[in-house]
Structure formats: structure tokens, C-alpha cells
């Protein structure tokens, strides 16, 4: 089976078996839209690895995975693509290999480079959605600015300790400068102090992937101009209005 085979079946109203459990929620049209969608995932670490796994299983047809970093031992506690075998390997390349095992309908463009001002337009152009799975505040602000300039919705998530946040930045409206101070200070948040335990990236990434699917299929109410903030130490889940 290939993506074209799956789309041909869906066009006839037949459902490829691998997507049968998707259809009750997103419908045949939703599945077709996902298979024809193009998503850039920027960062293939704790958040990105989980997002990539979920979007591949859901059947997003094309993903550009951007990460110049390689897996290290300290990634093993939480990054789903980090295994004892993949230590030292490029994160985007490992992600591509994983997706090939999970869903051959999905075309992957692995980019073993860090996202920056010079490659931003080339890497983001033509994408339907951009996923912010980065780990530096300055890079997140750059990604947001470029996504807004290119008029592509950005699905943001970030984590630290038992805390995380997910939101959608649209081309018009407030950007990540509403969330992060842009003057001075560190390029890291409180994760520098708290670290990132195993479950926090999975929790944030699951919501992030769900928002991507909602954006691409038009189902439900997306987190536009909002931030879903969770602080699981105290079981707090709050929806914040970014105005």
C-alpha cells in the first residue's frame, strides 16, 4: 500500500484497514485531508518524537522533520525515539526510519540541520501546519515570526517539570511574544531547573498532535489565541486567553 493506494480506496468510499479506527471521529473526508496534508515538525526530541509518532499513525501524508541534534544518553528518560541503539544518531533521520516502520503512506523529508533564520523560508514554505517542538525560547520566537509571515498556523507546546502548555498561533493575532519576554534573560525557561520527566512531553505532545489533526480536518474548536496550561503537580488545567 502507498498513500496513492489509500487515497484511491477512500475515493471509492472504502476504508483502508489501517485507518478504520480513525474514521468514526474524522470521517472519510478527514482522512483524505490528512493524507494530502503537509506538516513541518521543528524539533524531534521529547515533544517532536511523540508528535511525529502520533501524526504518522493518524495518517498525515507528508512530514518535514527538522533537527540537527543527535540522541544522547540524557534523552533516554523521555524522548520516544531515543533508544540505546539510536544514541549518537541524528534525531530527524531516526524519526524518518521510525515512521517508515509505522506507516509507509507517510512521506518524510528529514532535515539534519537546526532551524534558523537562513533556512526558515525554504523549510516552512508550502506547509499546511508548523509544529513547534523546539527547546530554546529564541528559536521558538523566530519560528513563530516566520510562520506568521508565511501565513501558516503554528501549533506550539513547551514543557518543564510537571508543567506544560499548548496553544495555536495563527497568522493574524498574538504571537509567542505574548508568552515569552523578549528582552534579556536566559534562552531557557524553568526546565533548566526542573528538567523534563518522562510523562510531561508525552502529555503535551498528545494535545499538540490532536490540535494538528483538528486544524487539518476542521473538526472541533482549536486552541486559537489560547494557551492550555497544565500544572500536574496540583492537577491544574487552565485555558488562558492570549487576547
Amino acid at each position, binding site marked *: 500500500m502507498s498513500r496513492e493506494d489509500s487515497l484511491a480506496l477512500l475515493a471509492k468510499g472504502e476504508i483502508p484497514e489501517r485507518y478504520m479506527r480513525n474514521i468514526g471521529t474524522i470521517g472519510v473526508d478527514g482522512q483524505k485531508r490528512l493524507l494530502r496534508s503537509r506538516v513541518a515538525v521543528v524539533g524531534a526530541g*521529547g515533544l517532536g518524537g511523540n508528535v511525529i509518532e502520533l501524526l504518522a499513525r493518524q495518517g498525515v501524508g507528508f512530514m518535514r522533520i527538522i533537527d540537527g541534534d543527535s540522541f544522547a544518553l540524557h534523552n533516554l528518560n523521555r524522548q520516544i525515539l531515543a533508544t540505546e541503539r539510536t544514541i549518537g544518531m541524528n534525531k530527524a533521520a531516526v524519526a524518518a526510519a521510525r515512521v517508515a516502520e509505522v506507516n509507509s503512506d507517510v512521506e518524510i523529508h528529514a532535515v539534519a540541520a537546526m532551524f534558523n533564520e537562513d533556512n526558515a523560508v525554504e523549510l516552512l514554505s508550502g506547509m499546511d501546519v508548523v509544529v513547534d517542538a523546539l*527547546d*530554546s525560547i529564541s528559536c521558538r520566537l523566530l519560528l513563530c515570526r516566520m510562520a506568521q509571515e508565511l501565513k501558516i498556523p503554528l501549533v506550539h507546546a513547551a*514543557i518543564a517539570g510537571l508543567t506544560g502548555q499548548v496553544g495555536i498561533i495563527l497568522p493574524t493575532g498574538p504571537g509567542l511574544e505574548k508568552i515569552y519576554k523578549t528582552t534579556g534573560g536566559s534562552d531557557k*525557561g*524553568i*526546565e533548566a531547573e526542573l528538567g523534563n520527566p518522562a510523562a510531561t512531553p508525552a502529555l503535551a505532545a498528545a494535545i499538540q498532535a490532536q490540535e494538528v489533526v483538528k486544524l487539518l480536518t476542521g473538526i472541533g474548536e482549536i486552541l486559537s489565541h489560547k494557551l492550555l496550561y497544565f500544572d500536574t503537580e496540583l492537577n*491544574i488545567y*487552565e485555558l488562558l*486567553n492570549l487576547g
Partner: protein
Amino acid sequence: MRIEVRLYATLRRHALSTAGGVLAVDVPEGSTAAEVIAKVRVDANEVHLLMVNGVSSPLDQVLAEGDRLGLFPAVGGG
């Protein structure tokens, strides 16, 4: 006037915080969010996101009786 202050994540560690990071603060009428932050002994430099009654607001936002002030540090990990 009385303001309800909610502190999130690491901000709970550094302040005059009650259980759950929620505290009631009495301040003069017309006080700003920045003045309340100083009163609860939170370092304003650590506050990246400031919400008044669930809406993102600036440090110089003038508060009113009963307002809920939420203070969030930067969360940036991936």
C-alpha cells in the same frame, strides 16, 4: 481591595505562598499588577505570562477588587 493571586510552577517556591500557590492580598485601590507582584515577593523578572481574570495583561495593568491575578514563569523545554 483584595486580589487573589495564583502562582504557578516554580513561582510557588519563592513567595509568601499558601497551599496550592493561591493567596489573598490586600492592596490600596488603584494598585497595578506589578505592585501586587512585589507585595507577594515574586521576582517580576521570573514572570513571563501575567493573566488578569484569565486574560493576558501587562505589568502596569490597574487591578480592581476581587481580580484574579495569575503569574506564570517561562516554560520552554521540548
